[in-house]
């Protein structure tokens, strides 16, 4: 450790104030602080500080994403081999998935971090950790056959317009990962929906029918997947969204560490259950009579409420606001699924919609606090 530290101190020289590469200090700092928590001591305010920092928080989210990611990689291969009718082993499926997905992750990180570093150097601030999570989320919510250049353009849009335009991490209004997905969804619809994108190589091989469950329902077709399959995740869909089970493992980690808000998750669950149940009673078409509990385990619902809706920057910030925000996301998701078959996946739109309205929710929650306090003054 001392060896690394000493070398790092040597390399650091030209990046320091007055050095030749002073301008690039933020870039160097990002690598240095990745290796070592800095030796900065407190200057103002409290003299002692908690061990938690934003890096630790973000890394916790990444760890929570890993089970869903690994299953997503496996499922990519599994869907490919099952649909093409080939014999395969677990390893074959895993390797095929890795071959497809690792390049996507690499592109997402390379493009996104390049922009982040560029902005950090340009603006002279430290590189924020936010993109470490966003950069992993983006490929995880895309269809597997998306061309890498499209992924790169979606990332550029999300980071530039979704985040940096507002001032960087902590200032964005929309969830950056969903911004990337929404961009791809509207810019390249043929690559983002239909029955040829959800299974690897589906467009090249005849006979593969890789429609998602929600897509089939919207098309009025029957579903031949059981609830157990939907829960386990051996179904076509965006890369890492399919397995409710592995998403739940991540959820447990996020809830235990307190990194994600249980209010938002529970709120969404309650909202979706209520609306789903009401539609079941109504039952006018296939989507309406699709059991409410199945709504919770197909599509991006679970992944969305655990990893997307709980993004603290774009969610409501007050505790009461989080309940309202969560409830409405759950309810809207089912509403969109049922009433707008052109967008069978309602989760993305529901979350983005509520991202926009989160400040309004907070405004009224804080406003109620102000009224309460003013009332006290008059008594």
């Amino acid at each position, binding site marked *: *450790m001392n060896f*690394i*530290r000493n070398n790092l101190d040597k390399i650091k020289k030209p990046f320091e104030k007055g050095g030749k590469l002073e301008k690039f200090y933020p870039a160097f700092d990002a690598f240095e*602080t990745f*290796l*070592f*928590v*800095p*030796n*900065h*001591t*407190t200057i*103002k*305010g*409290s*003299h*002692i*500080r*908690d*061990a*938690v*920092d*934003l*890096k*630790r*928080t973000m*890394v*916790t989210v990444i*760890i929570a994403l890993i089970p869903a990611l690994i299953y997503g990689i496996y499922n990519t291969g599994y869907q490919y081999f099952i649909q093409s009718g080939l014999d395969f082993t677990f390893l074959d499926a895993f390797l095929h998935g890795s071959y497809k997905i690792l390049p996507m992750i690499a592109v997402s990180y390379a493009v996104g971090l390049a922009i982040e570093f560029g902005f950090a150097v340009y603006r002279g601030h*430290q590189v*924020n*950790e*936010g993109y470490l999570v966003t950069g992993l989320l983006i490929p995880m919510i895309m269809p597997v056959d998306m061309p890498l250049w499209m992924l790169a353009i979606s990332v550029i849009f999300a980071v530039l317009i979704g985040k940096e335009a507002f*001032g*960087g*991490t*902590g*200032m964005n209004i929309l969830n950056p990962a969903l911004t990337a997905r929404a961009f791809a969804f509207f810019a390249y619809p043929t690559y983002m929906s239909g029955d040829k994108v959800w299974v690897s190589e589906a467009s090249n091989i005849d006979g593969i029918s890789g429609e998602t469950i929600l897509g089939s329902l919207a098309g009025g077709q029957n579903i031949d997947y059981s609830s157990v399959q939907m829960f386990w995740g051996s179904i076509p869909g965006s890369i890492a969204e399919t397995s409710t089970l592995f998403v739940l493992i991540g959820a447990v980690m996020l809830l*235990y*560490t*307190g*990194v994600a*808000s249980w209010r938002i998750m529970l709120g969404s669950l309650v909202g979706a259950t209520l609306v789903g149940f009401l539609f079941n009673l109504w039952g006018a078409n296939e989507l309406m009579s699709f059991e409410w509990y199945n709504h919770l385990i197909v599509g991006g619902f679970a992944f969305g409420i655990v990893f997307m809706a709980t993004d*603290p*920057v774009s*969610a409501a*910030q*007050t*505790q009461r606001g*989080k309940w309202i925000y969560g409830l409405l996301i759950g309810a809207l998701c089912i509403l969109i699924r049922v009433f707008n078959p052109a967008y069978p996946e309602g989760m993305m739109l529901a979350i983005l919609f509520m991202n926009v309205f989160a400040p309004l929710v*907070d405004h009224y929650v*804080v406003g109620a*606090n*102000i009224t*309460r*306090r*003013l009332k*006290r*003054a008059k008594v």
Partner: protein
Amino acid sequence: MSKDISIKNGANLALTGVASKEIKIAKDSSTVAIYPDDFLSLIPRMIVRVGDRLKLGDPIFYDKNDEKIVIVSPASGIIKSIDRGEKRKILKVVIDVDGDEKVRHEINQSLTKEKILSLLLASGSWPYIRQRPYNIIARTDKMPKAIFVSTHSTAPYDVDYDFLIKERLNDFQKGINVMSKIIGKPITLTSSTNKESIFSNINNVDIININGKHPSGNVSFQINKINPINMGEVIWVINPEDIANIGSFFNTGNFNPTRTVGVSGSSVKNPKYYKSQIGGKISSILSESDISNYKGNRYINGDPLTGNKVDFDGYIGYYNNIFSVIEEGNQYRMFGWLPFKDNHIPSFSRTSFSWLFPKNKKVNTNLNGEERALVVTGEMEKFFPIDIYPMQLLKACMIEDIEKMELLGIYEIIPEDFGLIDYSNTSKIEAQEIIKDAIQLMLKEVG
């Protein structure tokens, strides 16, 4: 008569090296000093010059904002230096202690409210009274609706006021009697529940027992639960030891600058209480041999969450009953950002297993990360036990939106109430500094 209330939310930070209950009389201080920065927003106008001879109780400077408020000398001697910083701002006034002369005031038996107020001002005991909002020395033109004295202490290394006051109960009672005459009703005295308290026999007080973790010892939160401040109202807050000092003045006619400090911290070899005085030299209570590695420590007037940094050759602050000595944390930690690593650092976050080791913890001054934009939400509320949105208030303060600050509760809080938020927040936001600047802005714009 006593009442019980609970203050929920918060957490105790159990640190190692708490002062044991043993009082040592400090050595006589060869020099004493006053830091004008101990008084928020006070602008000192010097009355004396270097070389002037002073008795204990002679005025040194007055406040430009309220000229009746004078700060008096805590010892008899000769002004040694007036240290100035940038823009000639006065950093400290140092006095060479010499002789034992005291200014004596005549105290009549029949004290009226007006007489008490003028004696408090003339004697220099007035700065013991601080007002809410803002925690500044009480303005002389506005009488309070209540006076609060809190003996419920929860901050890390906080002193036990029962222990500190038990030899001075007479002075304490006198101080209470005098101050309650000003408002014409009993003083609000808070104490901890489940504790035999020496204060239960004090007269002229409404005792309120408080149950809660830190920051329930902060008077802001107690006031909010007991007698909340609304726009335009004023409450006075006095430290228990200063009540005794005021009482002592009315018993003897001499200004009493006694300051007992609990010296605590992981670097102190035998942490205990020292009876010293306001502005006493730190070296009069601690020698280098009392501290392990005395150069590698931070010395703090106050507790580690809210105190002021001071050099080892500095002086005891005006209001602090706590003096903390903790290690400087200027070391690197490899991959220290990994969750569940370095569990020896106390953490309120579940991304650490530090809760498994609830024993008293050793802390240092490392920032443990870097400052970031506010990302995580809902964590500040855990350490803010009243109906105020701390993050929204901080944001209003950052953009200097005075109207919003008022509506969100700037009148009810002071910087120290954000001590735990400073400590625990993920983005390492300097909340106390933001509130301090905001209060100064309020004083300038609203008054």
